[in-house]
């Protein structure tokens, strides 16, 4: 039983870490601001979610009852991540940041046409 739990915890941690890694690589490598915004707001949130599931599993199976603190973390993450992503995107739109051609949308200008 314990081995299965540990394996599951490890699995969720790994999944979480993988998403976080992908999100961080995206933040570093993607070509324009609007693309980079996806990394920390989506992938990394999912990564944290994976780790939280692992944490719930781990602490709930130590005989001290169900651990639900993590749900609060999830809740606040769900509140803060969209708000900050929205604010960042609004700021970027207002400042008319340069974009690559593939990025489409109202207000987003292709690279070179900025200003």
């Amino acid at each position, binding site marked *: 039983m314990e081995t299965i739990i540990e394996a599951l915890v490890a699995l969720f941690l790994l999944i979480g870490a993988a998403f976080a890694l992908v999100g961080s690589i995206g933040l570093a490598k993607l070509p324009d601001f609007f693309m980079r915004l996806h990394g920390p707001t989506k992938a990394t949130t999912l990564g944290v979610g994976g780790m939280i599931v692992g944490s719930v599993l781990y602490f709930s199976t130590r005989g001290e009852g169900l651990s639900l603190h993590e749900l609060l973390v999830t809740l606040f993450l769900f*509140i803060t991540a*969209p*708000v900050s992503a*929205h*604010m960042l995107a*609004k*700021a970027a739109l207002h*400042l008319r940041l340069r974009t690559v051609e593939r990025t489409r949308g109202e207000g987003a200008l292709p690279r070179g046409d900025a200003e």
Partner: protein
Amino acid sequence: MTLSLIIFLPLLGALLPPLFIRLGRTACAWSAALLAGTALAILLYHSPAVFAGETLVFTQPWLPALGLNFSLRLDGLGLLFALLILGIGLLIILYARYYLSEHDPMGRFYGMLLLFMAAMLGIVLSENLLLLLVFWELTSLSSFLLIGYWKHRSDARQGARMALAITGGGGLAMLAGILLLGHITGSYELSVVLASAELIQAHALYPVTLALILLGAFTKSAQFPFHFWLPHAMAAPTPVSAYLHSATMVKAGVFLLARLFPALSGTELWFFLVAGTGTATLLLGAYHALFKHDLKGLLAYSTVSHLGLITLLFGIGTPLAAVAGVFHIINHATFKASLFMAAGIIDHETGTRDMRRLGGLWRFMPHTATLAMVAAASMAGVPLFNGFLSKEMFFAETLHAGWMGEWSWLLPLLATLAALFSVAYSVRFIHDVFFGTGPRDITRKPHEPPRYMKVPVEVLVALCLLVGILPAWTVAPLLAAAAASTVGAELPYYSLAIWHGFNLPLLMSLIALAGGVILYLLRFRLFALHDRIFPLCDAKAWFECGLARTIAVSHQLTAWLENGSLQRYAMLLVASVLIVIGTSLWGTTLTGPVAMGTVDGVTLTGALVLGVSALATVIWHRRRLAALVLLSVVGLVVSVAFVRFSAPDLALTQLSVEMVTILLLMLALYFLPQHSPAESSTARRWRDGLLAAGAGLSVAALAWGVLTRPLETISGYFLEQSKPGGGGSNVVNVILVDFRGFDTLGEITVLAIAAFGIYALLQGLRLPSPTTDGEGRPWAEDRHPLILSAVSRPLLPLALMVSLYILLRGHNLPGGGFIAGLVTAVALILQYVASGVVWTRERLPFDYIKLTASGVLVATLTGVASWWFAHPFLTSTFEYVQLPLLGKFELASAMVFDVGVYLTVVGSTLLILANLGKLTLVSQPHEETK
């Protein structure tokens, strides 16, 4: 105990007349008179014991560790002065009722008069020298207020300032002298000091001590060369001059001479300092008095001269001279106060005090003239009046002064000369005012004053006559009691008779009387001569000039030290810290005996992040937003470090403080220029870098020194006592609200004051705010994005609930008023940020000033409440109560205190941030009206 009432009745009663003035002027005067009268009754109740030779002492420790006790002493000398203060005080209250005009604020006058009376009584009844000094300074302050009573007049303001500067400065010197005296004798109690004369006079510090104490006494009693403040203090209303500047306050200096007479007198130094100053003052005052055309000026210089006479008597140092000195204090108080009041009546009825315009008033006010003549005769030393008796004793003592060797003929000669001038100015006072031709240029027809205005003068004049004719039946017991406690030993034999046979003192009196009249007859020639010799000696101009120069020098010094550059202050601060740490660490072994521990990867990483982001903040300080982000990284790592080292309370506090600080800085950045120019030169950058590195290294060295030594802390005590003593298991919180509750009270008070200060500074501030960012792009139109405001609103009740939870559990688990207050503040500020100042103010109409003040009030009242249960301030108590549903619940008084802390923190944080945020409205109103 009732002794202290004598002082506290007028002291606390000083608040009454300003209230009673609403019931009319007479009620106001009655309220003051009743207080003084009650104090006088208490004094008289104690007087039989004093006449029987007892010394009543009352002691109540005040700051015993400093030697300051509230100890009072009633002996003969104290009784005499207290009688003068209260008796003449009552007469002055009656007189002032009629002297003050309808326009003068009478309640304020009586209030300040009572305050002065209390301070004066404090001086004469103090047993503790430090207490005496406290009251001494209080007389300087209250006399400052009284002299400047007519504050619309510049001469009153200047006179008040001069008196305060001179007597206050003398008080400082006296403080030093008294501290030395306490150092020599080991006690500030008079009974000890007075009994240690030999010890004091043999001590190496005796000359310094004596000089310092005498400075205090001489400035207060207007002795040469500090005499010039007294004539300028005559800008005060006449009741004040009669009371302070003739009967009481200026006597404080000679009182001090009398009080410390047994301890300090009897040496050659005492004789030359005190008698020398006294003689100079006696002559100078008497000379100048004759040449003053202003009635009050004449009386002022005459007072200076008589004070010099008394000082000279104490300076001679024999017991008999001291008796004469005490006697002359009584006599001078009676005749000079009545003369001042007479001068006030003349001023009141004619509108002028200039003797060149007055004259012939006998026809209009014979009653007043008679009274004034009796008092003036006493001042001149005419037989059958009280002034004659003490003056005779004075002449006799000058003949027997020691220490003078073959120059001993000089003192009697100078004394006779001064008495001669004294007769001349007394004659002038009477003749120039009541006889001769005149009055000239008087707008109204003079007449007798109101009936009751003359009563105080009549009482005093009657005393002059009674004492002068029947000394043995009137003043003798009081004089004996007062003189005995002045001398501190058995009194020598003296006779208070009027007639002692033909002797040298009588001859000196006769010469003075005859010479004085002749001098008066020659006055016009003398006036001309005087005007030619003394046009340059304007002490006031010199004083004002010196004052202006002192102010200029201190301005320069201040400008040099405090040039307005914050960077410079920071540099000076860090440099001094560096010097202090450096010098104290120099030559000590830094490394202690404890071996180094191991370091784990997580801690090391945290430390590296901390260091790198701190450095990066400095390097990128001109890219403000980036620097701000890096600064918040520093704060976060510090909070995490607190968690790492098991300090959850600190971590929570640090986190919330970080948020508030970053918000504050964001607001500040909005108003700052968008680009920071590079202002520092390379040399300066090197200097600052070296200073910063030095300071950092010193702190590191200190930390290293502490960490490599065995840990000896007081935390064990607190850990043990927290639960049984404070009723809480969260030691940090118990220390904050209980063990060190007084510190916390002080801190929240400072916080509140700082918030009020910032609020005051922001009032009316108009900052130019940029309409575009650094690259010329305008700000976004959408100031309050929908998602943020929509999300933040439901968060508010949640956050408030959390903060309440943190507040309530704080006594036993991490939390408490401070953290809860910060959490609430952050939640409320979020509303400001998300929805704007206008929106939030409409929905949160709290007055943050009142909120802050109520927090401090709640905390203070919690502390005061423990007095109710006869415990010291801020003693906390706790109780466990059983509640249905909730179970066992702890109630601690410290929780109420914590609520006070909570309210103060919320109030002051929001007071600062909300008002700073409001500036964005003031500077850009058009944005909001859109």
